[in-house]
């Protein structure tokens, strides 16, 4: 069973060398890749081949038993990740904007919160949606974001907690401010 690959720490073989890093990463990644057999390297070598910006954290290398996490915990984590990856409702959703000739699609899982999403939408459609307020919605803005939820109803973006929004949003529609007035007011 392979526990790690032995590398030759000779710089000349760089071109043909198998590396564990992402393509395009530089030689500083080599230090991590070559740790298994060349523990006797001196600190001078370290300095010369590793400059500050580029000695990035590890690539996705797989060493048996590192990081030292109990296998029970590892298994549970993997299962949890699988579950969240397969949580399909609310990943790629269609986004339409009133007056635009065609729709777009975005992956709402990429965003961490409402401001992130709104900024992305504003950039994508070159519109302004302003700031959300619970009472007024997006009143006063040119456009307002709305979404269709699991029940088929059109809701104003921002009312429910972010996590809930992500799991219940089926599609987005950026409505003209004038039309959205009805949604925002009490």
């Amino acid at each position, binding site marked *: 069973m392979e526990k790690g690959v032995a590398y030759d720490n000779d710089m000349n073989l760089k071109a043909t060398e198998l590396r564990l890093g992402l393509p395009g990463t530089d030689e500083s990644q080599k230090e991590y890749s070559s740790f298994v057999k060349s*523990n006797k390297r001196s600190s001078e070598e*370290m300095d010369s081949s590793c400059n500050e910006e580029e000695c990035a954290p590890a690539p*996705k290398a797989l060493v048996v038993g590192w990081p*030292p996490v109990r296998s029970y915990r590892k298994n549970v984590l993997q299962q949890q990740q699988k579950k969240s990856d397969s949580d399909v409702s609310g990943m790629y959703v269609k986004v339409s904007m009133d007056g635009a000739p065609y729709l777009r699609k975005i992956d709402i899982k990429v965003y961490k919160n409402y401001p992130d999403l709104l900024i992305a939408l504003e950039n994508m459609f070159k519109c302004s949606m302003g700031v959300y307020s619970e009472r007024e919605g997006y009143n006063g803005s040119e456009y307002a974001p709305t979404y269709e939820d699991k029940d088929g109803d059109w809701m104003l973006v921002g009312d429910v907690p972010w996590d809930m929004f992500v799991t219940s949003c089926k599609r987005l529609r950026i409505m003209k401010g004038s039309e959205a007035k009805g949604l925002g007011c009490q």
Partner: protein
Amino acid sequence: MRSFQSMLNYFPEEVLEHVFDFLTSHRDRNAVSLVCKSWYTVERFSREKVFIGNCYAISPERLISRFPRVRSLTLKGKPHFADFNLVPHDWGGYVQPWIESMAKGGVNLEELRLKRMLVSDESLELLANFFPNFKSLVLVSCEGFTTDGLAAIASNCRFLRELDLQEIEVEDRRGQWLSCFPDSCTSLVSLNFACLKGEVNLASLERLVARCRNLRSLRVNHAVPIDALQRILMQAPQLVDLGTGSFGQDPDSDSYNKLETAMQQCTSITSLSGFLEVVTARCLPAVYPICRHLTSLNLSYAAGIYSDELVKLIRHCNKLERLLVLDTIGDKGLGVVASTCKELQELRVFPSDIHGGNAAVTEEGLVAISAGCPKLNSILYFCQQMTNAALIMVAKNCPNFIRFRLATLNPTIPDAVTMQPLDEGFGAIVKSCKGLKRLSVSGLLTDQLFLYIGIYAEQLEMLSIAFAGDSDKGMFYVLNGCKKLKKLEIRDSPFGDVALLEDMGKYETMRSLWMSSCEVTLGACKTLAQKMPRLNVEIINDSDQMEASDDDKQRVEKMYLYRTLVGPRKDAPDFVWTL
């Protein structure tokens, strides 16, 4: 002085026994039994709790003959690195011979605590049927049994108080083990089955909780949904420790209100864990009322709680002494912990993504915690990067560390700012923390760090080394300097024969030494085994890397040696050679 000693000699044994009753720690009792023959005798007949840190250091028969009145036994089996898949499953550590001997020997066993041992259904059945007063079973990181074994325990242990399963993969036989607790069972004080993957009969669980009025600790598994949890809590408002199970789904407002009410009833809860499958953060506010009483909070399996919700929760927990979280909390989140949890003593931050994604924490979080939590004495920290400056600051802020374990996701990463080895940082930790008992180091490290450890880590008992050091000197510094060292485990480091053989007597003062992927050769291991008959030197040859062709120069992939009074073990599988 002499007359005092003779006075003590005239004390009847019952008096000595009564005095020894106050000694609960096994170390104290061990010390006492070394004083003189009569003390040894009185002590051994009065000892009820026995701790055996390595199940192969002694035999069950000798245990029973020395401590015939033993009622509580703690056993540890596999070496620590077995947790990280470095030891094959069937290496050993069977509990069966212990249970058989105790059953034969008429031991009145009441309590059994096992760690990293192989436990079969047969063992559990024996346990359940041969020890009528059996009260407490605690299994940590064990394997080899199914829910059938649990059913045997539930059915037959009439006075069972504690059943505690931690981080175990139990094969689910769908036999409804929980329903095997008879209606007459009302003695449960602690029930922890959070790690079980299978379903449980919810109605049985609710009835069990209802009739066990002394239940203090309950940790359920993912198969218990929120509405069942709420009903259980209404039956057990006296709970002190709760594991919530999945805490998933998105309940309607009626269920949520019921949950809130149930939680408000539980005014005694000081320890909380679970949240195994949180789907939405909407239910979390239900636990806010109990947060202010919490001293222990384990969210390390709550992958579904995102950073901002996590932080909101923690802001309510200002009495926390123990916190376990995932690194999704981030450095900022740790800053909130630092300003909220002033009583914090123990912190564990686990990686949420084994491959080191964006969620990881850095040295900033650690520094913040050290600055805000002066009582911190135990830490396990998985991080993206570290710096010497940060570690030096941590050492200055927190001189009281007893356990300090750091794991960088890249095991040989240097100081993130200076690119230097992390020797000075860890060196500061050992210099400053005079009471340090356990240390795990990682990152780019040279022999210099081990020199520091040898000089300063006077109380160190356990040291874990991975991908570190330059030469045999490193290992030598540690073995020579750390007088109280009990367990040394080393992987992927350039330590070899010279270091191994330098001071062979040292290993008899220690519990065990593990070395894997180092530079140790077969010949040196043989020499050691030959010169030290009271050590078992085991070579684990699980990938057929070694031939029995006795090339003494070949490197040994995995070596585990430990002191023992009973010679080579007889249950070693084929791939384990005892030299």
